């Protein structure tokens, strides 16, 4: 219950500042390559830096130890690379990261609404067909 309420509130804040700032987590890299515009890229760096500093601080505050560092098995790493590449490539073609698509859909972009329909249908497709197929095909 705590997580549900917290994520709802966090989502509200994220959606609000996301709309005001036009932040996009793939747009920063795209804009830098296309027109050398660094405003969104700075947002990306600010997110990473803040989280990087905040994780150990939160760990101290809650008394949890940091994660043990170690790479998982080769199959998981290969899947992470393939999936990460796909996320980046298709998000660029779709003109925005998933967060940006949520924001655009909320401000009336119908193409982002059909994106979101596909997005949520994708979750079911993944767990009904893709995930079992991967489990069967991979060692």
């Amino acid at each position, binding site marked *: 219950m705590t997580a549900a309420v917290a994520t709802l509130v966090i989502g509200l804040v994220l*959606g*609000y*500042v996301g709309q005001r700032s036009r932040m996009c987590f793939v747009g920063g890299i795209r804009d830098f390559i296309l027109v050398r515009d660094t405003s969104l890229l700075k947002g990306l760096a600010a997110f990473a830096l803040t989280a990087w500093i905040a994780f150990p601080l939160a760990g101290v505050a809650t008394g949890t130890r940091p994660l043990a560092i170690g790479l998982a098995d080769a199959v998981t790493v290969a899947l992470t690379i393939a999936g*990460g590449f796909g996320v*980046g490539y298709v998000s660029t073609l779709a003109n925005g990261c*998933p967060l940006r698509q949520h924001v655009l859909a909320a401000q009336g972009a119908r193409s982002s609404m059909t994106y979101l329909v*596909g*997005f949520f249908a994708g979750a079911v497709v993944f767990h009904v067909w893709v995930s079992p197929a991967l489990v069967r095909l991979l060692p």
Partner: protein
Amino acid sequence: MFSVSATQMGVVAGALAVAAGAFFDVRPPDAYGICMACHGRDLVNWTINAATGTHLAVAQASLVFPVLTTVGVLLGALVAASTSGEFRAWTPDHPVKTFFYGLLVMNFALIAGGCSIRLLLRAAAADAEGLVGFAAMAAGVTMGTLWLRWRASR
């Protein structure tokens, strides 16, 4: 209406993402504070499970109640767009194409274990796979951008 820079947005989102996991039970898994793909998956699968009694996978953080990031972001952006007069209905160029883009991004994100935001969040949490995934995502964005530029230049 105050404007927000991307840098300010990044700081706010980074702090909230860490706080969600550390203080508000949005875990396990680790570094799960913000993820548009996994949280959307949790909400969709949880709702289908509750309605039809299926057992589609959800993260442990969403077993009892689903995380509601998706709903929050849509509402928050709707409020921001309406109060600033930026809400307007655009008609889609290619509804079928964007549908499949969404479907593909969700599947790739679930294979990688995070959308663009959570891959970066995992990298910031010193998760080696997160770093690998984010690097792969950056490579994907670069390739996608170069492809778009090449296509536009023909």
